[in-house]
């Protein structure tokens, strides 16, 4: 391990060198265009080497050993207070020369032993310096395979899942996926195929290098330049006789990135420095060996040298950094920079924290929405239905300043709230019917879910009862969960994704590539489900779930060793054979201290209302996918826990906020906003809500097999009704086959358009003898104006505009004028109303919740 730049133990940590050179340069000429729209004058330049966040400043840079490298960071401060990366905007010099070499990207490489001063000079003459000591520059040390060679395969993509990293390898040569199993890689590289891959007598002629450099035909093309450091290191390793490293060599403990966060300007750049920390407290610059991946590729890109470039879109973007099995995140905020003032008065902590964020981003929010929009929006979001015209009129005429809060409360307390959220949870809990014998179970489970929501069972209790469910479906409906989720792996994976917001599948076969979770963590969680006993239930298609007495252990697929049950990041549980391990799991999950449980739920509900999670996708809350507003997520989590996991309270808290009540209409600044919640993001009505809304508007009734006529689609007990309803299928009602919300398809398609515009089903609803159009056409007590008003209240909860009224009545005239025959006139009038309703249900204003 000698050839990493080792900062000897504790002393080595005192290293962050901060040199401020305040320059009173008289030259006021503007900086060159390369630096783009700079905010003002640079007042200071800072040259920085930081190796650990635990120490603030260092005296000098030490480079020890021929392989040591250090990426420098140069930061400019402007008179406006802004801070920008200047690492690649300055020229570097070292004096005396010949000790250290610094390339244009600010990377220092040792040349000869000695001490020197590195000076960074900006174009307008500001300077910053740092001293450097080079030791043992000629010393060639034994290469360590896991720490130095394997990362090369990861960086060059050799061990990616599409190439040699897949389980079957590629053309006979196999590497472990992303280098998670260095011992295996060593076996394959050095010993397999009679050692033909490496040639110590002439390292350059090794098959590995000939292929990687494209000298010999290679399906993966050229992956390595012969003059690169990586290539030289590989050659040296082969020349040294392919050492693996000693058993007591340090292994990687964690990585750290500098800076961790930065406010950047649109189109700005930031050089990152990634430091690896080893178990012997040494550190190493691995900036060029790490992999970089932005979580939003429309917002930023990162190259192999650790240079991040953000684009024009304002907001937050995270760059995930991976090195060996470790991950780190760099977060950039790209402010729009507009003035944010005259904000509505915050009503709760949500408003305060979103407004705070908007001020940082410099993005003024849209105005508050009007009463009609609010009423329709919140009714759909909480109860999955449109308000009736009577409700709409009453609400609009109500002068009570608290009317919005009151309406929210009445919705939350209505049975439709339970219907709508039971529909959501039923799909996620995979309440799926695939055979008629399962009907009793799916109905019972559905009722159990719905009843729990109706009486507002606390969320911890709800989850706990599912996880620990034992017995028969009839007596204890949540055992139905174990029918579809029917083996320890599926059980832990659903638990992870649904209740913890963690997608753990990857860790079944290898270390999670984007997370800290290993196979050990995976099987620790699986172990909780290993004692789930099953025996035939009272009728075919049903099972009795029970605790099978015995010690819960899972077998790690890789090591083939037993793993004790353990929560993620928690110590293994010591359970006796009589303890149902699921109880221990439920206790760990629903504990107030569990860092994931409440957090994932509030994020899931946030997404329900705002169409985008604070972490998105909502069930992918890994460390490397950070929230856009961490403070808000923390506060929601805290609030939810303090309320005693009260779901209705959460819904009320969200809906009562000003943020939820912002208009979706953008102002001149926030049109492109997709993550700061500066306005409401419209979402298409879901299949069920749309189906019900069309019925409500046309005054038709649904008819589902075995259910009372008029049962609303949002109140369907399970997935089986999709098969008989082309409408629900084509608009993407989920089949309850996954614990992911993403199973619900909200994409548009041609088949949907055709259906809503032209289906016989729709035409029949419009043309029914006792349908809305017929009723309106034959209603002689009101004039057309009033009837059109009613329709507008029905579909949009608002008054029609003059123009709209004129269009509609004009159309009725067009169809009916000149028709003297009474029968003919009746038909024409009815058709006119059919056409108007048809047009209204096909407008975007109807199809979207906005």
């Amino acid at each position, binding site marked *: 391990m000698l050839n990493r730049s080792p900062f000897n133990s504790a002393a080595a940590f005192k290293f962050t060198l901060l040199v401020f050179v305040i320059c009173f340069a008289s030259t006021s000429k503007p900086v060159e265009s390369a630096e783009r729209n700079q905010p003002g004058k640079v007042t200071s330049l800072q040259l920085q080497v930081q190796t650990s966040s635990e120490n603030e400043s260092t005296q000098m840079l030490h480079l020890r050993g021929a392989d040591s490298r250090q990426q420098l960071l140069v930061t400019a401060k402007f008179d406006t207070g802004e801070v920008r990366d200047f690492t690649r905007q300055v020229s570097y010099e070292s004096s005396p020369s010949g000790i250290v070499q610094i390339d244009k990207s600010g990377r220092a490489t040792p040349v000869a032993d000695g001490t020197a001063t590195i000076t960074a000079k900006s174009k307008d003459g500001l300077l910053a310096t740092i001293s450097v000591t080079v030791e043992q520059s000629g010393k060639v040390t034994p290469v360590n395979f896991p720490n130095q060679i394997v990362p090369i395969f990861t960086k060059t993509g050799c061990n990616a899942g599409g190439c040699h990293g897949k389980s079957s390898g590629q053309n006979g040569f196999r590497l472990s996926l992303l280098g998670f199993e260095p011992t295996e890689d060593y076996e394959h590289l050095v010993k397999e195929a009679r050692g033909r891959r490496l040639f110590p007598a002439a390292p350059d002629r090794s098959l590995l290098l000939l292929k990687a450099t494209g000298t010999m035909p290679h399906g993966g093309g050229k992956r390595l330049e012969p003059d690169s450091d990586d290539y030289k290191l590989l050659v040296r390793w082969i020349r040294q006789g392919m050492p693996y490293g000693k058993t007591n060599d340090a292994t990687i403990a964690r990585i750290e990135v500098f800076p961790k966060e930065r406010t950047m300007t649109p189109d700005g750049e930031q050089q990152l420095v990634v430091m690896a920390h080893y178990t012997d407290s040494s550190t190493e610059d691995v900036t060029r060996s790490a992999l970089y991946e932005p979580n939003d590729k429309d917002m930023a890109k990162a190259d192999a040298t650790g240079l991040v470039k953000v684009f024009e879109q304002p907001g937050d973007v995270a760059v995930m950094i991976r090195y060996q099995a470790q991950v780190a995140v760099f977060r950039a905020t790209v402010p729009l920079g507009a003035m944010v003032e005259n904000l509505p008065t915050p009503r709760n902590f949500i408003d305060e924290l979103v407004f705070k964020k908007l001020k940082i981003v410099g993005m003024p929010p849209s105005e508050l929405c009007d009463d009609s929009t609010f009423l329709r929006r919140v009714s759909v979001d909480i109860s999955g239905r449109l308000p009736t015209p009577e409700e709409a009129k009453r609400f609009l005429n109500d002068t009570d300043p608290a009317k919005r809060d009151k309406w929210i409360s009445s919705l939350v307390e209505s049975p439709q709230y339970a219907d709508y959220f039971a529909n959501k949870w039923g799909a996620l809990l995979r309440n799926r019917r695939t055979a008629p014998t399962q009907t009793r179970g799916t109905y019972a489970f559905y009722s159990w879910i719905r009843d729990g929501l109706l009486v507002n069972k606390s969320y911890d209790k709800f989850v706990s009862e599912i996880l620990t469910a034992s017995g028969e479906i009839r007596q204890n409906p949540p055992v139905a969960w174990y029918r579809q989720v029917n083996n320890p792996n599926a059980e832990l994976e659903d638990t992870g994704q649904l209740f913890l917001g963690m997608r753990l599948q990857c860790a079944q076969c290898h270390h999670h590539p984007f997370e800290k979770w290993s196979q050990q963590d995976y099987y620790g969680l699986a172990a909780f489900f290993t004692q789930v006993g099953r025996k035939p239930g009272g009728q075919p298609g049903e099972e009795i779930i029970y605790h099978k007495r015995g010690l819960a252990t899972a077998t790690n697929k890789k090591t083939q060793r037993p793993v004790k049950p353990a929560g993620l990041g928690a110590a293994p549980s010591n359970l006796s054979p009589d303890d149902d391990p699921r109880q221990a799991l439920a206790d760990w999950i629903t504990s107030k201290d569990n860092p994931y449980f409440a957090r994932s739920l509030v994020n899931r509900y946030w997404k329900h209302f705002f169409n985008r999670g604070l972490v998105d996708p909502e069930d992918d809350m890994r460390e490397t996918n950070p929230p856009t507003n961490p403070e808000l997520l923390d506060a929601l989590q805290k609030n939810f826990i303090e309320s005693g996991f009260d779901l209705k309270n959460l819904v009320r808290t969200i809906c009562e906020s000003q943020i939820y009540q912002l208009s979706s209409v953008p102002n001149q600044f926030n049109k492109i906003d997709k993550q700061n919640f500066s306005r409401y993001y419209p979402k298409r009505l879901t299949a069920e809500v749309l189906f019900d809304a069309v019925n409500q508007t046309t005054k038709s009734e649904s008819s589902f097999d075995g259910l009372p006529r008029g049962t609303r689609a949002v109140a369907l007990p399970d997935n089986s009704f999709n098969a008989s309803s082309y409408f629900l299928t084509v608009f993407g009602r989920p089949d309850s086959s996954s614990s992911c919300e993403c199973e619900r398809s909200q994409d548009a398609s041609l088949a949907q358009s*055709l259906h809503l515009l032209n289906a016989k089903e729709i035409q029949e609803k419009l043309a029914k003898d006792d349908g809305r159009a017929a009723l309106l056409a034959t209603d002689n007590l009101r004039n057309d104006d009033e009837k059109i008003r009613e329709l507008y209240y029905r579909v949009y909860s608002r008054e029609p505009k003059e123009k709209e009224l004129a269009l509609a009545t004009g159309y009725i005239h067009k169809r009916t004028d000149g028709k003297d025959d009474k029968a003919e006139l009746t038909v024409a009038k009815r058709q006119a109303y059919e056409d108007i309703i048809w047009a209204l249900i096909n407008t975007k204003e109807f199809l979207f919740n*906005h």
Partner: protein
Amino acid sequence: MLTIYGRKSRFCDGISRRNFLKIGALGLGGLTLPQLLQAEANSGIRRSHKAVIMIYLPGGPPHQDMFDLKMDAPSEIRGEFKPIKTNVSGIQICEHLPRMAAMMDKLIPIRSISDATDDHTDFMCMTGRSKRNQPPGSWPSFGSIVAKVQGQTHPAIPSYIGLEPKMQHHPYNAAGPGFLGVAHRSFKLEGEGKPDMVLNGITLDRLADRKALLAGFDQFRRDVDASGLMAGLDSFNEQAFGMMTSSKLLEALDFQREDKRTIACYGKGDAKPHGDAAPMLMEQFLVARRLVEAGARCVTVAFGFWDYHGNNHKLAREDLPMLDQGVTALVEDLHQRGLDKDVSVVVWGEFGRTPTINKDAGRDHWPRVSCALLACGGMKTGQVIGATDRLGGEPAERPVLFGEVFATLYHNLGIDVNRVTITDLSGRPQYLVEGGCQPMKELI
């Protein structure tokens, strides 16, 4: 001098009538790209996209009675068909496939598909995956993946179109969009959505009135939606109106617009479903070609019913000539129209059939080996892939996996199976084919 070949019109009478266009005498140097494209457009050639036509033979066709006759086997295995020579020396196929024999240089029979499962379903032929150990939501069809990865070439033409009807035996329709979701389902011209494509109880005039009315009402600001969904809806609505009135898609579907002689080449099919499976409409092969030309990337057809548990040879004697005529007409047509490099064709079923002929003169299910036929797509044609043992019961050389054929088809579309992934419902990136499956080196 640059010669851009126009639409060649060679018909099955063998006469070639080639119209071509000659531009200048300077060769490419004298022509800018826009001019070239214009010239192509004028001569009826578009810059072509890549596409795949998949012909599924439900029930599992008898491999040993089509491309792999076993004359050295005992008579209870051999059967009554004789092999004939093809226009590629050394390759022999069944006497009831004479047209294929005459164009073997344009075809690739695979004799050694080795990973079929004993399950009457289109699943393997559409997804290349086993039904076992599926991710939640199930594996998507090839066409759904292509639609997702490559999108549409033309706003009015869906990327993935299924011409097969809903077959009576449900598992023949098993494959779907899987975890990619319903929006990537094949656009079905038969089945539940079909009635939506013709006007339902209203006249064209009234539709026009409605459309105008909708345009008047639908003034909601589109800029409230930054996700593009509203714009997408508008575009689909536009397509839908086109389809209800008259449109590119409908035109493409109407093979009667084709030259009579071309139609005749494909032969007259049989529209009634065979067995519990599909009709035998060679006309659909022509429709598939028209759809691909119009912009579709993947068109699937189901053809006949091949589950010959009884009367194997009698049925094959009836069915093979229709397959023979339809497939050869399609391949010839693709070549004639210069689409042979762009459009891949695959013909296959879910498994092969038993070597031994049973008491009912039939052959039963035999997943241990099955066959496939590939053509066009720029592949190296005129060769046979793989071989079976003496009895036609086991792959003896070059066993081929379904996934390898799929990898080849993806390759032909320009999709790198080693790079492109799709995300399943658990957030796991999934490769498009089973691990280890690569485009077949012999073919590309």
